[in-house]
């Protein structure tokens, strides 16, 4: 059974169709990439799935439950965690505090929550920064914190929204290996990313959308050579060599 099933999802903003009858199927254990040119509707699709807003129509099924329009905090408890494109740390608090907020979603005890947060930080080689104020972190560390927070909620599906934007090439590589590790631990990953090199290296399966519609899907190699994809990215007069 698919972990996440999106059927005929449409989202309109005042007559404008940002997402148009989109179908997606994510199998457990997959790293699933969603790409498309600027303004294609990726973030809108992402936000509908993550519960930031309800789709206008269509059906989203997660782990056997229909989750259309479900509140974000309930989605989190059912095992769906997300990161934000613009990272949102609790800036006046330290790293451990930030992650503990997240691990409270599975316990009421501060001691347990902190222990769990520490375990997540250690798994990401991040424990040495536990007392640093989140507002003082570098961007790479903020992205890492964002992932640590999402992981501390013990997700089955991790939604990643451009977590590599603004990272240096070596930091991107580090991020890629973190995600590969997570997959090994059995976490399914749904990723939107602009850095093609990374998404091509990571994904098992990629869906490309333009004007809110799916225009192609397949393995990274198939996508990179798909005529419709190349035209979507490079202009529709582009001569495909």
């Amino acid at each position, binding site marked *: 059974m698919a972990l996440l099933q999106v059927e005929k999802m449409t989202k309109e903003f005042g007559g404008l169709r940002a997402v148009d009858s989109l179908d997606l199927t994510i199998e457990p254990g997959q790293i699933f990439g969603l790409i498309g040119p600027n303004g294609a509707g990726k973030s809108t699709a992402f936000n509908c799935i993550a519960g930031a807003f309800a789709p206008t129509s269509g059906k989203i099924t997660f782990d056997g439950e229909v989750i259309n329009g479900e*509140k974000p*905090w309930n989605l989190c408890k059912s095992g769906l965690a997300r990161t934000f494109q613009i990272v949102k740390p609790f800036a006046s608090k330290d790293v451990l*505090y930030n992650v503990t907020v997240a691990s409270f979603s599975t316990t*009421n005890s501060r001691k347990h929550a902190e222990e769990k947060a520490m375990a997540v930080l250690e798994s990401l080689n991040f424990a040495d920064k536990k007392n640093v104020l989140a507002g003082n972190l570098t961007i790479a560390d903020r992205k890492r914190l964002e992932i640590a927070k999402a992981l501390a909620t013990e997700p089955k599906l991790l939604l990643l929204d451009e977590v590599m934007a603004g990272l240096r090439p070596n930091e991107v590589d580090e991020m890629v290996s973190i995600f590969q590790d997570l997959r090994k631990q059995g976490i399914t990953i749904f990723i939107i990313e602009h850095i093609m090199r990374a998404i091509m290296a990571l994904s098992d399966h990629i869906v490309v959308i333009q004007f809110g519609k799916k225009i192609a899907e397949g393995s990274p190699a198939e996508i990179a050579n798909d005529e419709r994809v190349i035209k979507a990215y490079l202009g529709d007069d582009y001569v495909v060599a």
Partner: protein
Amino acid sequence: MNSQHINKIALLGVLALAFALPLVVRSATYLHILVLLFFYAYLTTSWNIVGGFAGVLPLGHAAFVGIGAYTSTVLSLQYGISPWIGMVVGGVLAMIAGIIIGLPTLKMRGAYFALATIAFAEGLRVMVENIDYLGPLKINGPRGLQIPPLETGFSHFMFATKEPYYYIILIMLLLVMLLTYMVSRSKLGYYLVAGGEEPEAAMALGVNVARARLIAMAVSSFLTALAGTFYAQFSLYIHPKSIISLDMSFEIAFIALIGGRGSIVGPILGALLLRPVSDFCRIYFGDSLPGLHLIIFGLVLILVMLYQPRGLQEPISRLYQRIINRPQPATSGS
């Protein structure tokens, strides 16, 4: 001796000083000033649970003071019920009011919430001023209620001297500080801070921000009302214009903002700073320069917002850290 030891000793020293103070301060005027200082510190600490941790700006907390004061006073005057019981009843009523007012407003943007709380407090004041009898209960409208000092004693919450009031409010303050300390280290505290700083991110991490704020509002209004009963028993006269006043609501917020929102010591610092200004201005310049203390409040508020927007608690605790760490430079991080 490490800094943790110094902290403990300093804390004990301050506590001992606070308890010993009435032995030294024999003047009823100064004791009165101290009682009011602690009273405001208590109110601000209660305010801080919602106004500080949750990051919203309530500007009508005097309404809860009024609910507490009126409830216990009416119950004790008409039915002879001990103010201690009335205190709890008032707290519960205020909590219900806090939930009713918070339910629709806590989701709003900050300015709307601030306005809604002001309107609630002002509306309540106007109603109290208009009501002589609420069913069988005598509210006495604009004339207010006088508490005749008939029987003194603990169960009557009435004393001939100021010292007992001093100790009661001191203990109330210490308890409420302990409570906010515990809240700040609990799941609720974490959720309030997270929801106050980045509501969207907090929700994605499983935090029902509106519910956490509502709980904070309920706790805060309950605690605030308890101080209302104290005030009624201390001053023996309550009156809608003085106890449900905008000035009181704003003073609470000012103390918190100047001292430091969302910190445990912030309200104490704010009260230590502002209350004496207010009292001494009134004593010495009340006739010649009326309103001087409010001008000072306004100026201090603007300066703090300009240069220390997170309150004076921050630079002061930095200074304290530097002093206690001076003998031996910071050794280890653990």
